[in-house]
């Protein structure tokens, strides 16, 4: 099963909101909306694994770290993200990372 990790992204959140409106108007069933989200999980996982090819480096200071259920959650402060094309600085960033060692088996399609 693909990670449902990416539902909390701009793309994922907007996708979660969209069916709600259709459900209200009885055009969509909640079950179907769930299926849509599952499909999204698969699609985003495979897209990220296959279609994205850039690298990023970052440096900052670690404020908190948490490792629970094989999920790392970090909060970094004053971080600089360096990509080939641009540099991004943020005061605070939260990183949620799932175990990527089994990614190969997670992505379907």
């Amino acid at each position, binding site marked *: 099963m693909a990670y449902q*990790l*990416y539902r909390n*992204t*701009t*793309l994922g*959140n*907007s*996708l979660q*909101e*969209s069916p*709600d*409106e*259709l459900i*209200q*108007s009885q*055009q*969509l069933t909640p079950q*179907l909306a769930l*299926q*849509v989200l599952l*499909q*999204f999980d698969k*699609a*985003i*996982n*495979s*897209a*990220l*694994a296959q279609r*994205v090819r*850039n690298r*990023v*480096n*970052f*440096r*900052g*200071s*670690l*404020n*908190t*770290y948490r490792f629970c259920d094989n999920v*790392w959650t970090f*909060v970094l402060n004053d*971080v600089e*993200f360096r*990509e080939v094309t641009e540099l*991004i600085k*943020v005061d*605070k*960033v*939260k*990183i*949620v*990372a*799932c*175990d*990527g*060692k089994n*990614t190969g088996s997670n992505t379907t*399609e």
Partner: protein
Amino acid sequence: MACVNPVPKLYRSVIEDVIEGVRDLFAEEGIEEQVLKDLKQLWETKVLQSKATEDFFRNSIHSPLFTLQLPNSLHQTLQSSTASLVIPAGRPLPSFTTAELSTSNSSASFTFPGYPIHVPAGVTLQTASGHLYKVNVPIMVTQTSGRASILHPIQQVFQQLGQPSVIQSSVPQLNPRSLHATAEKPKRIETVLQQPTILHSGTVDRKHLENATSDILAPPGNEHEIMSEALLSQPESSQYIRLPGVVFPPQVSQTHVHGEPVLGVAGSMTQNLNGGPLSTGRQGAQHQHMSDIQLRVLKNRMFGCGSVKQPRNTEEPSSLPVSEKDSNSQMDLSIQVMDDDINEIIQIDGTGDTSSNDEIGSTRDVEENEFLGIIDAGDLKVLEEEADSISNEDSTANSSDNEDPQIDVVEEDPLNSGDDVSEQDVPDLFDTDNVIVCQYDKIHRSKNKWKFYLKDGVMCFGGRDYVFAKAIGDAEW
């Protein structure tokens, strides 16, 4: 377009894949194709609004109909303004200024060029459907086919309002028992309202409502005023003020703290439902949530108020001052009290349900020393489920425990608030706009030096999205 970050394309492809994937699913379920299209449009619209991607729309569809895509943060505005759209200065939107805009300083409808338009302030936009929107601040207009996106927030609002019916069933259990009406309020108002309302609510609980209602109504008058003042600061508050049939003074309780649904004042809620759902929803998700609970509470109360009130006729002098803790514990105790005529609502400090038994008795005793002396165990027992043991304990432990529980209760708040402060740091700390969702290959640490080897991540900084296949980072803890 070639030099633009790959995110829009990626998102586009993901959306396409997902839609294609569910197309068959939709067909199996017998869902119309149009629904799928609507879903796609909604999805793309929201993604576009998030400003995570700039040039998102590449539709070649040209139609005179265009809708105003407003950021989610403008929902409030939409609710408040019906005649004209007053868009507060939101985030700076990517500007795709077009020549047409510069010329159209007055209301005009024009064919959508096919890509998001940055509409400068002062422009009046007219959609094909006839809606006229005056743009006071720069907005971004994107093209969507289908219903106007503006309706979305309204739908969402109604959606929220529509939920109470579902929740209603779960609340009734509390309703007949709750002697006091508690209203959910925005956090800011809670503390303000608590004290004045608590005083009265306490009396209500003691009094046993109904006849007390008449008595209570008098004092609550002040409360209402107080509440109205406090509530006026928020649009929703007005709802509470308008209470035609309010029996119980609205109480403000921190649902967040209690974690229990708070019964809202019935009268106001119904009115609000009918009259101003938009205003209710205006406050955003949080308020909507509150209004939902209020609504359900309202309904519950309406059902149970009449019956509840009357049994409570046994009145005791309502002059008892009610401590804050009592009011907090009212909810818990009220459930237990139920139909007792004695109406001694055992008030439990909201923090401790299980351990509150002893406190309940003691607290009751403390506040109702005079009354308890007379009524005491027998009556109190009836009220409490475990009354027998508790009342005995209370009677015996009153003197000694009176102050302690109170003190504990009183101190608990500051103590808890102290805890809350530290607790809040963590949630607040984790609640940030800059989020990275990814997978980790390896996380390494040496002393306080951390190394991160991440992959397949989506980053969102200040609303803008980025993606990476690999990310390597260093941080010092």
